[in-house]
């Protein structure tokens, strides 16, 4: 993250700093609370069924921001698509503001029309290539796009066709367009994957600022730990589970519905899969130790 900051232009504040600076104006009440209860999702890959998510329990308070971290195939995007209502979980329940949306086949479309906004990894795929940012915003319902363009640093390219914008500008425009609808839940998939560090910082800052201003609940999928660091919470996913959660710089293991715990990489080196471990309950908590054969009574 330090190196990344170093790439930013001189005199420019860090992402976290900018976030802190501009994050003050919060709109209360727009964000939605998301609750996942033992969500499992399977999909068909050829002749095989693949478990994409396994017993995911998760609560995202209204107005909070969460980064989903994890390697490819860990289930981040699947979780994102479930939250966006593009798919329905195989089992488990999903609540949006206490409303169970699991059983309603039309809930996803309704949610996207009213509450949930999804930003794709490549924002150009959801932008009209021939429309200028100004026209795109007007089309999204922004009757006075000038201030919006300014706040998203797009004034200079306001009348340029979208296809001629840089990747960062396209990302910001896509964000501006979805924010024009002030969504209660903003889902963003890999917002910085194709950006250089300076663009990345601007986009992330803009993202946090916009979400804070709108009071939206923000869920971002990212590979980039530096980006994840800017969020209140980070959820690390592995093999379809939420294995750990980071809060204020502290990594917390998450106990699964079946009582399992996903170990961090360092802990796994000490306790690789297939090994036995002893679990001791002490006054300070639970002590997990590798079990050696010579320790047997």
């Amino acid at each position: 993250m330090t190196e990344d900051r170093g790439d930013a232009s001189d005199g420019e504040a860090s992402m976290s700093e900018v976030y802190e600076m501009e994050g003050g104006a919060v709109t209360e009440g727009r964000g939605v609370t998301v609750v996942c209860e033992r969500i499992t999702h399977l999909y068909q890959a050829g002749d095989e069924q693949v478990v994409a998510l396994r017993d995911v329990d998760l609560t995202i308070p209204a107005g909070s921001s969460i980064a989903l971290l994890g390697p490819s195939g860990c289930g981040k995007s699947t979780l994102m698509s479930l939250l966006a209502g593009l798919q329905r979980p195989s089992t488990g329940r999903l609540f949006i503001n206490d409303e169970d949306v699991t059983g309603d086949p039309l809930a996803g479309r309704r949610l996207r029309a009213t509450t949930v906004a999804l930003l794709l990894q490549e924002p150009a795929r959801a932008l009209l290539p021939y429309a200028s940012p100004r026209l795109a915003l007007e089309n999204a319902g922004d009757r006075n796009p000038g201030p919006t363009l300014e706040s998203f640093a797009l004034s200079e390219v306001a009348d340029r066709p979208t296809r001629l914008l840089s990747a960062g500008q396209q990302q910001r425009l896509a964000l501006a367009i979805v924010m024009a609808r002030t969504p209660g839940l903003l889902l963003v998939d890999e917002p910085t994957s194709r950006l250089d560090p300076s663009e990345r910082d601007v986009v992330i800052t803009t993202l946090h600022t916009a979400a804070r201003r709108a009071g939206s609940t923000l869920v971002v999928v990212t590979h980039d730990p530096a980006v994840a660091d800017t969020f209140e919470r980070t959820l690390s996913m592995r093999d379809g589970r939420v294995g750990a959660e980071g809060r204020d710089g502290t990594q917390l293991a998450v106990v699964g519905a079946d009582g399992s715990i996903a170990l961090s990489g360092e802990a796994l080196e000490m306790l690789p899969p297939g090994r036995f471990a002893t679990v001791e309950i002490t006054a300070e908590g639970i002590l997990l130790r590798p079990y050696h054969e010579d320790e047997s009574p």
Partner: protein
Amino acid sequence: MRTRRRFVVVLRLLGRGVSHRRGIAALILLVAVIASASAAVAPVYRSSAAVSALRSRMVTASPDETGVEVSGAAWPGDSPDVTLGKEVPRLPLSSAAIPGLAVGGPTTQLESHDGPVEFAALVWRQNDCRHVVFTAGQCPSGPHDIALPADAAQDLKVALGGSVVASNLARPLFPPTLTITNHVAVGKQLNPNATQAFQLNDKVVGIFEVPPSQSTYWFGADPGAAVVSPDGTQVTTVTALVPRTTLTGLPLPYRATVTIDQPLDWSNATPAQAKQVLRDVNSLRASLPSNLLAFTSIPSLLREDSADRVRLNRLVTLAQLQLLLLVGLVLIAVLASSMERRRPELVIATLQGRHPRSTALSIAAEPVLLLALGIVPGLLVSIPLAKLASHLWLRPGSPVHLTAGSLFGALLVTAIAAVVTVGIGYVAASRKLSDQLTEDARSAGGRSGAWIDLIAITLAAAGLIELFSTKSNSSSSSTPWSLLAPSLCGLAAGIGLGRLVPASLRPLLRSTAESAKLGRFLAIRELRRDRAAWRVSAMVALALSLLTFAVTINRGASADRVDRAGLIVGASRVAIVQLPPGDSLMQEVDKADPKGQWAMAGVLLDTLGSDAQRTLAVDTTRLAAVAGWTRPIDGLNPTGIKHLLHVKPAVARLAVPLLTAGDVGGSTFGLNNQPLTRSKVTQTSLLPQLLNAGALADLSSMIAVAKPVSPADLGTTQLFNQVWLGPRAPPDALTRLKAAGLTVVAVTSRAQVAQGLERLAETAGLSGYLAVAVIAAILAIALLIGTSAAGASRLRTETLALTSAGVSRSTVVRGRAEAAAVRLGLVGIVAFASGIVTAHLSVALIPEASPGAVPAPKLPLPLGPGLIAVIITVVPALIAEVAIASYAAKRTDAASLRAAMP
């Protein structure tokens, strides 16, 4: 205000979207124009062809058929004014006809003091001469006025103010004691005791010209036509106009004919006018008193025309449906392709949770607008197309104008296309987001494409089965819907190729992959991979099958027309001749053609009021050398004759014994399989049978058995001398006939008749079918070339990849050329086979291919024209495709690739 603002935003987006996708937008607009034109051109052509066919039929028909003649007799005690003179003026022909009255026919004669006798028809024209062109004087009005044609006045040597005497014949027209040598005179007896002496002294008050346009039919008969008497005298009947009061001077009983002058110029008639005439004629018939009979073929001609029009409409509609099928497939392909360019809109709509229906409607707005914009240009384009077809195949001067049907057709096609567009949009909008982001139309259309393929193949199979099952018990009354089979079979064959060939090439792909034949490997890979090209090729197969079918059927029908023209005319040319009194026609002909190689004597029977003139007898010894039937008739074997006369097989069966009469020694010749002794065959027994059978008689036999005819028997029957001129007739044949002493009055040629047949409704229908097939072929080839050009950027990218891997550009191009050659070659072969097979199966089901033949014959259909049609369409398409591939391969540098990126 908000709505207006929103509307402005949508309009701006629409404009920018169209500009951004101008390539596909232009393609949609082009296809929309073609679709509208395709829907509009057929009604325009049908309308034009209907008028052309009506005019051709009526003009081709004899004057007796297209006129109206009212005949009756007056007897002692009858008042002619009551029966004829009173009735005629009130005949309800309204403005379509002007009444006239002909009295006496050839039994009246005109004499002057200095001139010879003229045989005359007296026509009542009291103060009503609107259709008479007077060169001097005026229409007769007084009781003893008369107006004469200029040539009659010259013959009679009278001028305006002079006097003539009209009387019934001073002598019988044909002396009963006359020995017939080379002619037969016949007639029907209306009133054998009609002639009593009467005489009128008239003053010539007008001299007029018979207008050329009315010369062939002015008062129900050719007023200047020569009537051949058995003694060879040329009797010319002239028409003299007399006032109505002249009738009162005629003695009773007399025979009279009321002839309705029909002022409608059939060569410029419209269907509406024809309907009015039909109403008038029917009204006239209903109102006639019982002692008057109306003779006309107008109702039957118009009935035939109506039936022709139904067939014409059906045939052109069938062709149009096949064209629209192709246009529809092209439209679907283009619209599906356009949906690929709408991916951002689809994705945005899905992300915003919009209902697919709403998305489909909004996304379809742009193509639907373009489709709508194509209506007017399409209608405008249909006019020159129809004019071109009209110029090529219809009667000159046939009106070409837009009809309500064409507008309705264009609107209907556009509406259907709009619904299809919304449907395609709905399917695209209903797909999962992941599919919308990744799949293109070609891969997404897999399942629906399979259904379309299955439906097309099923329909084609059903059409073929229908054709197989109905060809044996065909009825020539209608064109079956199974004639949609050509295009369906072509489409099915193309689809089948697109599925079978890639699958069957798998082993070859493996073997060539391991061999050094890289170009061959690339070709096979291309054939296996490029499903889109196969799909377009299936449309080409549809069009080419239709074209092959249309060309083959038209070629067969054209040959049939030549045959029919030969049967109608009899020889390459047939001349009506006059000969000096006392001379023998056969001797004169023998003088002109002593070797008997190119000329033949004949007699033409013309019965007024009957449907047509027909040859009654010919010199059968010269028939084989002279008769103009297109196929050899050596030996006049019955099978051959039956084949030649397939239009009326029953006629052929009867004609054979008559034609061979000269060969059986003159003892007997049969009719209706009843051997008759020649001596017993009299004119009265033979002639009706000949007329009923439609057979030819041997002229010398006829002359030998014919009896003299009394003048009263002549009635409305006339005989004319003919000379048939065969294919070996020298260029100066007519001069030689003149040198032999014959006067040539008129000449009819087979080419002329064949040309007339080409203008009839059935030919117009087949031509319309061909026109539609040509349009379909051009459209399909244009689509093929267009899609090749549109895929050029893909070819560039692939070429770059292949050349980067070390493959030479020439190898890449060769591989693509081989693939295109195989694909188009196979498509051409299956399309040709499909067209030929369906043509052979269905030719007997198309009454237009051989009109009048019941049951419709199995025409010999040539393969050549269809094959040529396929080759001249496939080869340019192949050249274009290879040229595009070659061009794309040359432009694979990074800069040009970047420039090609959207």
